[in-house]
C-alpha cells in the first residue's frame, strides 16, 4: 500500500505561500494513494502557468510542455501506451483559452485522460488579466472598463458535447475533490474536472466568498441524465454545485488499445508484401 510520502519529492515550490494549489496537490496525492497507483505508472502532462507546475511537486512521470498543448501531448502518450495513467493539469487560460481547440476535439476523440483544470478566473502568472472564465464586468489591470465577453461555461460546453465525464471540485474541499479525481481516473474516457481554485493574489473572489456557496450535488442526483446535468451546470448565483455532473460512456481513442512501446519492429514480410503491390 502506497502512502502520501511516496508521491512527495524535494522540488522547491514556486507557488505563493498559502495558495490553494497546495490543496489541489494534496487532493491529487490522496487520490493516487486511494487508487494505489505506482508513481512509475502515472504521467502528468501540463502546460504553462502556475497550475502546470504541480507535476513537478509530485513523484511521478512528468511532461511539462507548452501553454495550451497538454492535451495533444497526453493524447499521444496514452495512445501509444494505454497502460499508463495519464492526467493533464492546467489552468483556465491554458486549457480553455490557448488550448480551447484541443479541448473541443478531446470531447470528440475521447482519449482516456483525466484533466484537472485549476479555474481561478484570472491570469495570475502574467499578473492579473482576465481569463476565459472571468465574469462580465470584472475590472482587471488590462480590462480597465471591465470584462465585456461572455465567460465560458466549461461544464455546460462539455455536457453539450457529450463529454465522457464532467465534474467540478473545490480546492478547499480536499476530501470530496480527491473522491472526484479518483472517479475521474477510474472512468474510462475523457474526464474533465474543473476545480474552483481562488487566487489569493489576483482573484476577485477570495476563499471565504465560496465557503457558503459551494455545495455537493444531492445524493440522489443522476449523472447519467444529460438534461439535469445541463441544468446544474447552468446554475449561477448564490449556490455553486460541485460533484460529478455527467457521465456518458462511449468508445475511447484509440480503438485498438495495444501498447505500441512494446512492439520493437515491424515484420519485414509485411513490408515486402506491401512493396509487391507497386510492381
Amino acid at each position, binding site marked *: 500500500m502506497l502512502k502520501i510520502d511516496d508521491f512527495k519529492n524535494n522540488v522547491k515550490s514556486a507557488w505563493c505561500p498559502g495558495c490553494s494549489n497546495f490543496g489541489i496537490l494534496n487532493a491529487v496525492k490522496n487520490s493516487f494513494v486511494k487508487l494505489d497507483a505506482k508513481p512509475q505508472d502515472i504521467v502528468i502532462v501540463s502546460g504553462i502557468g502556475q497550475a502546470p507546475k504541480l507535476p513537478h511537486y509530485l513523484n511521478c512521470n512528468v511532461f511539462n510542455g507548452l501553454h495550451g498543448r497538454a492535451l495533444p501531448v497526453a493524447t499521444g502518450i496514452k495512445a501509444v501506451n494505454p497502460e499508463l495513467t495519464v492526467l493533464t493539469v492546467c489552468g483556465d487560460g491554458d486549457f480553455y483559452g490557448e488550448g480551447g481547440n484541443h479541448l473541443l476535439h478531446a470531447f470528440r*476523440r475521447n482519449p482516456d485522460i483525466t484533466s484537472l483544470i485549476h479555474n481561478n478566473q484570472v491570469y495570475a502568472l502574467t499578473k492579473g488579466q482576465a481569463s476565459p472564465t472571468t465574469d462580465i464586468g470584472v475590472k482587471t489591470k488590462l480590462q480597465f472598463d471591465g470584462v465585456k465577453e461572455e465567460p465560458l461555461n466549461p461544464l455546460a460546453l462539455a455536457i453539450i458535447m457529450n463529454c465522457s465525464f464532467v465534474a467540478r471540485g473545490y480546492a478547499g474541499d480536499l476530501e470530496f475533490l480527491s473522491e472526484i479525481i479518483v472517479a475521474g481516473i477510474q472512468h474510462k474516457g475523457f474526464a474533465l474536472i474543473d476545480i474552483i481554485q481562488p487566487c489569493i493574489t489576483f482573484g476577485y473572489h477570495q476563499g471565504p466568498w465560496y465557503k457558503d456557496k459551494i455545495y455537493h450535488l444531492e445524493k440522489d442526483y443522476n449523472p447519467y441524465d444529460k438534461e439535469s446535468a445541463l441544468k446544474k451546470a447552468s446554475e449561477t448565483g448564490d449556490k455553486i454545485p460541485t460533484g460529478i455532473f455527467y457521465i456518458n460512456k462511449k468508445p475511447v481513442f484509440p480503438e485498438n488499445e495495444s501498447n505500441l512501446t512494446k512492439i520493437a519492429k515491424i515484420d519485414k514480410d509485411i513490408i515486402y508484401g506491401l512493396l509487391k503491390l507497386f510492381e
Partner: protein
Amino acid sequence: MAKTSIIICGQAGQGIQTVCNILAKAILRSGYYVFAWQDFQSRIRGGESSSRLVLSDMPVESLPEKYDILVSLDKSNTSVYLPFLKKDGIAVAEDETGENILAVPFQKTAVEIGGNKIYANASAIGTIAGIINLGFERIETVLREEFTRKSNEIADKNVLVAKYSYDWAVKNSKKYPTETKGLKNLNMKVMTGNESLALGAIAGGCKFMSAYPMTPSTGIITYLSETSHKTGILTEQAEDEISAINMVIGASYAGVRSLTATSGGGFCLMVEGLSLAAMTETPVVIVLGQRPGPATGLPTRTEQGELNFALNAAHGEFPRFIFAPSNAYDAFNIMIKAFEMSQKYRVPVIILTDQYLADSYWTVKNFNIDKVEIKDYFSNPNDIAGEFKKYSITDDGLSPRLKPGESENLVVDDSDEHDQYGHITENNTIRKLMVEKRWNKNCLMAEEMNVSVPDGIEDSELVLVSWGSNGGIVSYAVDVLLEKGIRAKNINYTEIWPLKIPKEFLDKNRKFKIVVIENNFTGQFARLLESEGVKIYGKILKYDGLPFTEDEVIEEVLKYTSVHPLNSSFTPIDGR
C-alpha cells in the same frame, strides 16, 4: 534510345490520375522506365489539369518541354495544352479534328460499350496503349487489379471499354514512330514520393503518425492509414498542426517512433512544437512538403522555397537535421535515416519534399530491406545507477533515455530550462551547461552527413549544384551537356543540414564554376553555400510553381559555358 512522352489533360474529376497510374504500371511491366508528374489546380471539379508521363528504356526522372502525344479528355482543355505538343506529335481529343488531331469518341465509347460515361478514362487508357503499341494484356491485368476491389462488373466494363478503344486506336491512328516493344522484366516498382516516404516510415520502425491534411504531404498519412491493419501503425487526423506535432512529441516521449507531415503553412503552426521537441530532446520526424507560398500561395504546385524556413524555424538555438530526398528511391532510405538520426541524437529531423517529389510516379529499384538496421537507442533501466538523470551533462551531449512506466525510474521532461533530472530551473549556470549540452551533439551529427562528389570534379568546367527533387532533372541535363562536349558534373544535395562542403568547393585554385539550380526566387541553397565561403558563379532559378523541364535546364546551363554564343556578353546572376 526509345523515349515517348505523353500529356493527358482534362478537367479535375475526370480521372486523369487514374489513367496515369494504370498506364504507369502497365508501362513498367512492359519493361520500360516510367516517370509521371501530376499538374492540377486547387479545385475538385472542372478546370485544367494534366498528367505528364514519360516512358523510356533508360532511367527517367524528368520532363521534356514538348510532348510526343497529347490526349485531351475535355474539349475546353485541348487548346490550352496543344502548345505542349511537338510539331510532329499526335493529338487525340474528344470530338475535335484538325491538323494532327485525331478525334476520339471517349465519351461515346464509354456510354455505348460500358453503359456509363465514367468509363471515358478507360477509353483513354485503351487509346493511348493502342497508339504506343503497348500489349493489351498488361493493361487488362492492371485494370483488373485496380477495379476488382470495387466490383467484378466495374472491372469487366473497364476492360471492355479499354479493349474497344485499344483496337480502335490500332486501326485508326497512324503508327507511332518509336514502336514500343516489350523489354525484359525490370523487376522494379512504380510509386509516388509520398508512398515511398510512408513505406520508409514503416521500415524505419514508425508506430505513430498524426497529421492535419495538407497538400502535398497528405498522401503519407493516407497510405499509413490504409495499411494500418497490416502494420499496426496508429494514425490520427489531428484537429490542427499544433495538435499533430504535440501528439507526436507525446508518443515519442512515451517511447515510440513518431511522424508528422505537413506543408509550409502547417509547419508554421508546428514551429512552437519544434522548439518543444528540441528543448525536451524528444525525437520527431517532420515531413515538410514544400509548395509555393507565402500564405496559401499556389497550393497544388511545386517550389523549393522553404529551405531557409526549415533551417531557421523555431525559437531559441538548437541542432537539427534537414534532409531532402531527390526521388522516391531516396525518399525511402532517407526516411529510415531520419528516424535513426532522430532517435540517436534526440533531435528533430525535417525532411524537405515538394509537390514534384510527393505526387509524381517514380520508377524505383528494389529497396534492400534486409540491410535496414533499426537500432534501439533506449537505455537499459538496469544500467541506471541512483536517481535517473534524463538530461545528465555529458561531453557529447547524449544522455540516457528511458520510457515512462518501464521501470521505477521516473521520466521528467520540461519545456522550461531544466536540471539534469528534468525539473524546472532558473539557475543561470545550469542554463549555460544545458545550452552547451544540446549543441555539443552537433559535432557528431555533422559526421553523419554525406554528400556524393563525382570523380574527376577538379577537371570539369561546370559543377551544377542542386538539392532535393531537382536531382534527376539536373543529372539528365549533365548527360546531354556531356554529349555536347561540355565537361559538366552535378552534385545533388539530399543531406542538407548540418551542411557538408566538399573540399574541392573551398579550393582557391579550383578551375570549375559552380552554378546552383533551385526552384525558388532568392537562391536559398546558393546563399547557404556562400555563407560557408563557397564562391558561386551563377544561379538558375525557377519560381512559377512548375518544375524545371530538361530543356529549360540545358538551355540555361549553356549560357554559362564556353560554347554558348551569348557567352561573351552574358553576365551571370549575382544573386538577388
